[in-house]
């Protein structure tokens, strides 16, 4: 018993001793003692030596009160010699902070003078890390939960191995320089400048918003990306967008490592905070409306050298602006947006121009952002796309389908091609027999030949011959539908043209019926986004798609209303007591939702492409 007590008390004594040692004997004291010793050997006179002997190790700190929000940096507790030029060749932590003309330091009478004095600015303002930390691990931010580890020097243990080697280097500190040096072309921050240019040139601004720079709404806002994310997360998100968010539809831009680094440094500089400002000043800036902005136009208009003719200039722009991050052209395929390889044949210049300016003016549910290029850039891009005249040499239906259709409709014809997720309306599921067998071949031939206006289905008739169109339809029927077409009979009671001329009373009646019967799926506004629409595949038709509705013929519309659309959720409304007259009123209402467009803008605003147009005659 006594023995056990003695052992226990010995253990208690040892533990107490260890805790005491751990808490009251510090590494930094050893560093400071080493500094005093070495400084004493280098002292020039006795007075200096005596003074050094007077000093004992203590926590050194820089308290910054005159520069932005107050800042406490105890880095000098270990790095005691940062301002002592005699230690310039010493190893860390007792090494002189390098003097650099690039940082604004000047040499006067053989002595360097710092532009950014440590007592005025502190350390963490440039280096990040944790200023109050007194142990390497804490101070340098090795901990995986510390958001801003020592920039360019520390890579945390949980960072992905592939990127780790890229995330080291002084250039990452430029992100902090740019906190205060916000000028557009500040010479001290070349990586930030290049990153900002890339932000515009690779069209990041189309989707992402950064306060004062861009207004994209499609993707997450990046105004405070540098404040929220570590550099490894930023790098990973650019290189491999789906690594962190499986549903992300951000394209892979295939940028060089150097370009990614510039973008990371630029994004890291977006902290939503200027270090030089106090919270109060920041609040005032935010409240004052007029703020100098760097517009995309300002950056983009000088980013690309102008080539000799419009087409090659367009080609240059097309490559420079990363269009193939989403679109396909030739070998490059972003896998998000439509194939542009045959654009010159499929679309006319007016269509292209309108679509560039406001993508939704031609495909109302398009997700393509409206990029803010100059008129001349749009003209060049239009000219370039219009020059994509290469007709594909395609032997049989299978090859045509594989080359032209499968990118959206899928290799299996199930409407699940790689771009399908991004298209609205979604590509038709060609394996759905109920639908495929309830429509006459004429309808499909027409859809292939003339395309479906207001959607991403182009008019393939412009590049395929009639035989080819028939061949591909035959291929679809034999490969995907796999069932002989039933003998279709046209419904005798459906008139070819709308029997009721449009009138206020008819439209009002149609609206009443619409709200009662249709709004549940097609939505109160008729935009196809009613409360039930989320459970329905294919999605209810957007009845405010002007291009679709105006080209829809009366007979097809009335037939769809009265007898439903087989293979979809659209029921046969004649079975629910709707008459031909009701359907006609409904059609009048739907047409009234899509008034003809306002007259074209003044002639002066159209782009002058005459003369340089490469578009041939067909």
């Amino acid at each position, binding site marked *: 018993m006594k023995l056990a007590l*003695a052992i226990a008390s010995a253990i208690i004594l040892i533990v107490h001793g260890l805790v005491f040692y751990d808490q009251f004997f510090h590494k930094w004291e050893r560093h400071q003692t080493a500094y005093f010793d070495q400084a004493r050997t280098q002292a020039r006179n006795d007075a200096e030596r005596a003074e050094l002997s007077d000093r004992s190790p203590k926590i050194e700190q820089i308290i910054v009160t005159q520069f932005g929000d107050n800042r406490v940096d105890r880095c000098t507790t270990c790095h005691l010699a940062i301002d002592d030029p005699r230690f310039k060749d010493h190893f860390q932590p007792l090494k002189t902070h390098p003097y650099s003309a690039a940082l604004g330091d000047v040499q006067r009478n053989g002595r360097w003078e710092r532009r950014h004095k440590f007592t005025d600015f502190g350390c963490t303002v440039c280096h990040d890390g944790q200023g109050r930390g007194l142990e390497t691990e804490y101070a340098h931010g090795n901990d995986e939960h510390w958001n801003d580890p020592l920039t360019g020097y520390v890579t945390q243990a949980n960072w992905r191995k592939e990127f780790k080697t890229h995330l080291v280097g002084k250039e990452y500190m430029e992100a902090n320089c740019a906190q205060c040096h916000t000028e557009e072309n500040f010479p001290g921050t070349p990586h930030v400048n290049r990153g900002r240019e890339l932000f515009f040139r690779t069209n990041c601004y189309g989707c992402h918003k950064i306060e004062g720079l861009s207004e994209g709404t499609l993707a997450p806002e990046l105004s405070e990306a540098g404040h929220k994310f570590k550099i490894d997360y930023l790098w990973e998100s650019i290189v491999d967008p789906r690594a962190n968010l499986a549903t992300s539809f951000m394209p892979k831009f295939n940028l060089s490592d150097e370009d990614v680094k510039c973008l990371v440094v630029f994004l890291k500089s977006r902290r939503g905070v200027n270090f030089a400002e106090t919270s109060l000043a920041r609040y005032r800036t935010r409240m004052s409306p007029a703020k100098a902005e760097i517009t995309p136009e300002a950056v983009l208009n000088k980013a690309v050298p102008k080539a000799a003719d419009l087409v090659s200039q367009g080609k240059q722009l097309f490559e420079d602006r990363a269009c193939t991050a989403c679109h396909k052209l030739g070998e490059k395929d972003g896998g998000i947006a439509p194939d542009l390889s045959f654009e010159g044949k499929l679309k006319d210049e007016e269509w292209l121009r309108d679509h560039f300016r406001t993508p939704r003016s031609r495909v109302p549910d398009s997700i393509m952002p409206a990029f803010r290029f100059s008129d001349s850039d749009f003209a060049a891009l239009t000219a370039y796309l219009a020059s994509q005249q290469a007709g594909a040499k395609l032997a049989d239906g299978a090859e045509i389908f594989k080359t032209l259709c499968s990118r959206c409709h899928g290799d299996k014809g199930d409407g699940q091609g790689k771009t399908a997720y991004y298209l609205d309306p979604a590509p038709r599921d060609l394996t759905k027999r109920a639908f495929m067998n309830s429509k006459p071949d004429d309808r499909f031939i027409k859809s292939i030949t003339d395309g479906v206006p207001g959607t991403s289905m182009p008019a393939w008739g412009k590049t395929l011959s009639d035989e080819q169109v028939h061949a591909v339809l035959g291929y679809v029927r034999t490969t995907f539908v796999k069932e002989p077409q039933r003998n279709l009979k046209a419904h005798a009671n459906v008139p070819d043209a709308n029997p009721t001329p449009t009138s206020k009373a008819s439209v009002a009646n149609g609206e009443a019926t619409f709200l009662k019967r249709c709004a549940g799926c097609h939505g109160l506004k008729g935009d196809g986004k009613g409360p039930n629409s989320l459970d329905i595949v294919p999605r209810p038709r957007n009845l405010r798609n002007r291009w679709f509705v105006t080209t829809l013929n009366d007979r097809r519309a009335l037939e769809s209303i009265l007898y439903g659309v087989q293979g979809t959720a659209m029921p046969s409304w004649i079975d629910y007591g709707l008459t031909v007259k009701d359907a006609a009123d409904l059609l009048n209402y739907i047409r009234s939702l899509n008034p003809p467009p306002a007259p074209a803008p003044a002639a002066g605003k159209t782009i002058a492409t005459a003369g340089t147009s490469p578009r041939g005659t067909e």
Partner: protein
Amino acid sequence: MSENHHHDKPGNSRRSILSWFTGAALAGSAAISALANLVFLKPRATYGQPSRYSIGKPDDFPSGTRISLDSRRVCVVREGQKLAVISTICTHLGCTVGVSDTGFACPCHGSRYDQDGNVVGGPAPKSLAWYKVSLAPNGDLEVDTNLPVDQGTYYNL
């Protein structure tokens, strides 16, 4: 060992050694804890400005000038190659005194000091403090407000 009395039975002796050892170890633990608590009472760092700071290069203070550094609350006096740093904190109630032609004058209650900081009028009880000046290795002048020096102690450049 003084507590280790001689006993007849050897077991008793071993027992007393063990109890002596236990007592000593526990007392040692208590002493360490007490010491730790005592050390803990004195803060290792406070959020005041450091007592030792740089005031700039000697060239920033031309000969014959008396420059008041408001953020540090000191006045730098240079005469030829002699330099001194005098506190501008009034010894009466701690206002920052202004530099005047005759010396220093406090705006709060009218204390007046001469060029060397001696009281010449007003409620101030003591003369102004002089601080130790030294030259840092990088050529900056350093002041340590923890080390007051006698009046008239100049630093020779």
